[in-house]
């Protein structure tokens, strides 16, 4: 049976509205309901991916042909990213069972809706609809970021709100400019008729949209919110940000660059923003002492690499960028979950107080796998992403950029190695054992990382559709 992509959005929404009614009946079942919904959604996403591999799906909403109505435009890449987001959401929802702070009902509603927003951002084929889903994602993220309701949480969330609102204003300005000239909002329609736009106006619209979506994609210069927000949020929420909202943001960026403005003259701008982001993230990550802040800055660096890969703009580098999205979603989620456990076990978030914490093999092995993957070591999935981006850079002859990229990677290796040394040092200290809700997600992520590291062919098959994506397809 044909599964319509809109179900991926409608289902979490339906259950988010249903949860208050369920909680009247029993509060204990909430977390199982959420896990079940997310698992089911992941299965649906898988079916959608299989369908999309045959031919891009256009799911018409409300029965009006585009561009009159809104259409969901699901190509293989979009379906792939949607699957990644849904799988990550499901696994993180297992870890969410360790959250005990009230009001849990609101927590679960927000986490269902952030999934809905992130999926919607990836699937939609309409510019304004993209904005709406961006707002759904970011407002759910604001609520989750301040969920701890302590000083750190509020400060981080407020910073996020301020930057996010500026970003969404820019997105709206971009939409206004485009609409004023073309009187349409459908992405493919815009792309086809882009030539009718005034060239200067076109650049302004592009920069507005780029900066606006850059907030969610953690791009320099509007990414000052990242470390504080990640630091102040509950641990599962940090993992959600890294693997869901950031990924949907970067996919929206890819949409803006390739689907809407399918032009190559200004891609150097994207590359420069990317490399700036990489440096900003990696250098500051090196001097951090707080583990979640370090991971957050490292996350900025990785997102910069993805933006760079998109900007280089060859088939290879864009494949690398998409592979990097996948590996970063899995690896960073794993690391944030591990960090959450370590902060809980060590009673502090300072890395130098965590000696020997990785000597419990059930924590240590996934942790090691995750770090090596993020560092880009073969045979883990992180390797392919970085490798393809580099290859793409060589093809285009961006030698200076490649040198900078490698330097940043070395910095990254250095601070992760330092952390490994601390975590596996011999120590007398005994740490409390984690429970099943911590083991399970760690191990699932580790298995995914190793499996697709050794056997990347399925992913590469999906990514072979990049050429069509670059040509302005779905």
């Amino acid at each position, binding site marked *: 049976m044909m599964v*319509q992509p*809109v*179900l991926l959005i*409608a289902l979490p*929404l*339906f259950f*988010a*509205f*249903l*949860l*208050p*009614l369920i909680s*009247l009946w029993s509060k204990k079942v909430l977390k199982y309901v959420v896990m079940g919904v997310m698992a089911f959604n992941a299965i649906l996403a898988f079916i959608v991916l299989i369908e999309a591999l045959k031919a891009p799906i*256009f*799911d*018409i*909403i*409300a*029965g*009006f*042909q*585009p*561009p*009159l*109505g*809104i*259409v969901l435009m699901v190509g293989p890449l979009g379906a792939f990213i949607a699957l990644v987001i849904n799988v990550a959401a499901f696994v993180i929802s297992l870890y969410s069972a360790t959250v005990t702070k009230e*009001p849990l009902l*609101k*927590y679960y509603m*927000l986490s269902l*809706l952030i999934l*809905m927003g992130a999926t*919607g951002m990836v699937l939609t*084929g309409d510019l*304004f*609809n993209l904005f*709406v*889903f961006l*707002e*759904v994602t970011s*407002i*759910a993220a*604001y*609520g989750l970021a*301040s969920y701890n*309701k302590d000083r750190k949480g509020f400060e981080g969330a407020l910073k996020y709100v301020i930057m996010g609102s500026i970003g969404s204003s820019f997105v709206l300005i971009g939409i206004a*400019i485009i609409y004023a*000239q073309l*009187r*349409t909002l*459908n992405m*493919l*329609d815009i792309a*086809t*008729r882009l030539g009718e736009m*005034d060239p*200067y*106006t076109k650049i*302004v619209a592009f920069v507005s949209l780029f900066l606006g979506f850059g907030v969610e994609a953690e791009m320099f210069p509007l990414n000052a919110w990242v470390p504080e927000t990640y630091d102040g949020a509950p641990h599962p929420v940090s993992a959600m940000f890294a693997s869901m909202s950031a990924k949907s943001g970067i996919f929206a960026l890819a949409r803006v660059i390739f689907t809407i403005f399918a032009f190559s003259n200004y891609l150097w701008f994207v590359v420069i923003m990317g490399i700036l982001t990489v440096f900003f993230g990696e250098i500051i990550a090196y001097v951090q002492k707080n583990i979640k802040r370090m991971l957050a800055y490292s996350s900025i660096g990785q997102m910069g690499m993805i933006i760079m890969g998109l900007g280089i703009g060859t088939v290879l580098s864009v494949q690398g960028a998409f592979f990097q999205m996948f590996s970063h979603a899995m690896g960073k989620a794993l690391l944030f979950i591990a960090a959450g456990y370590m902060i809980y076990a060590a009673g502090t978030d300072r890395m130098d107080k965590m000696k020997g914490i990785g000597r419990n093999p059930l924590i240590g092995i996934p942790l090691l796998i995750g770090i090596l993957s993020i560092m880009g070591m073969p045979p883990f999935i992180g390797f392919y992403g970085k490798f393809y981006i580099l290859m793409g850079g060589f093809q285009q002859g961006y030698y200076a950029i490649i040198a900078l990229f490698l330097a940043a990677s070395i910095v990254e290796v250095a601070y992760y190695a330092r952390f490994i040394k601390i975590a596996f040092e011999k120590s007398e200290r005994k740490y409390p054992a984690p429970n099943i809700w911590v083991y399970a997600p760690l191990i699932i992520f580790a298995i995914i990382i190793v499996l697709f590291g050794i056997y990347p062919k399925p992913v590469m098959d999906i990514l072979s559709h990049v050429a069509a994506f670059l040509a302005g397809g779905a």
Partner: protein
Amino acid sequence: MKRIVAAILAILIFIVLALAFVKIPFGNINLSDYHYYNPITDKQTSDSVPQHYLVDGKKDTGSTNIVTAVVVDYRGFDTLGEVTVLFLAATGVGSIMYIFEKEKRRKVRRANAVVETASQLLFGFIVLFGAYIFVHGHLTPGGGFPGGAVIASAFLLLYLAYPRFHAEHKTLNVAESLAGLTFVIAGLLGLLISGSFLYNFLPFGVPTYLFSAGIIPVIYVAVGVKVGSELTGIVDAMMGVRE
């Protein structure tokens, strides 16, 4: 120092945007000058999107108010997102304000007797007027969001007049959930019946009659109830605990 940087940045942005908008005509446009391209059938059509809405909107949706036709039908998916956003805001505010529930109760003074009596008398009329606005969303200016806001203002009046007034949280939550579910289920029914989400599956009826425009009034009633209860919930959460 910061101010100078901010001022320079602001002026720069102003110049960049102003230059972009100098090229865009203000008011001197003819909506039928634009043509659109349908990515599925790969065809160029003769009229533009807004022109199509204005000319064929009544035929396509049965709604006299074209803005409503766009909001609820053509771009109904956006409205679903919008409803979700408001729901998220209410949820987020509820989550943030939760910590203050155990806090020391705030002492409040009684309000003016004149205000108390007047708010009692007005409450019902304001609710009725809100209902009038959202029921007639497809015929006259207005719709679910303004109507819901009017209903919430009736509750706001009660909060002003009786500082100790509390709306029943459970009732608000149930109203909110049921209204949201109505919207999603209307969409899913459309999916079942015609194969596209939010399809307007009810008969359109005669335009300008109240029972027309298919699911638009149904959705607007749901939206109105939802917005009303959510805004009331936000006000209630922000007022904190009083006695």
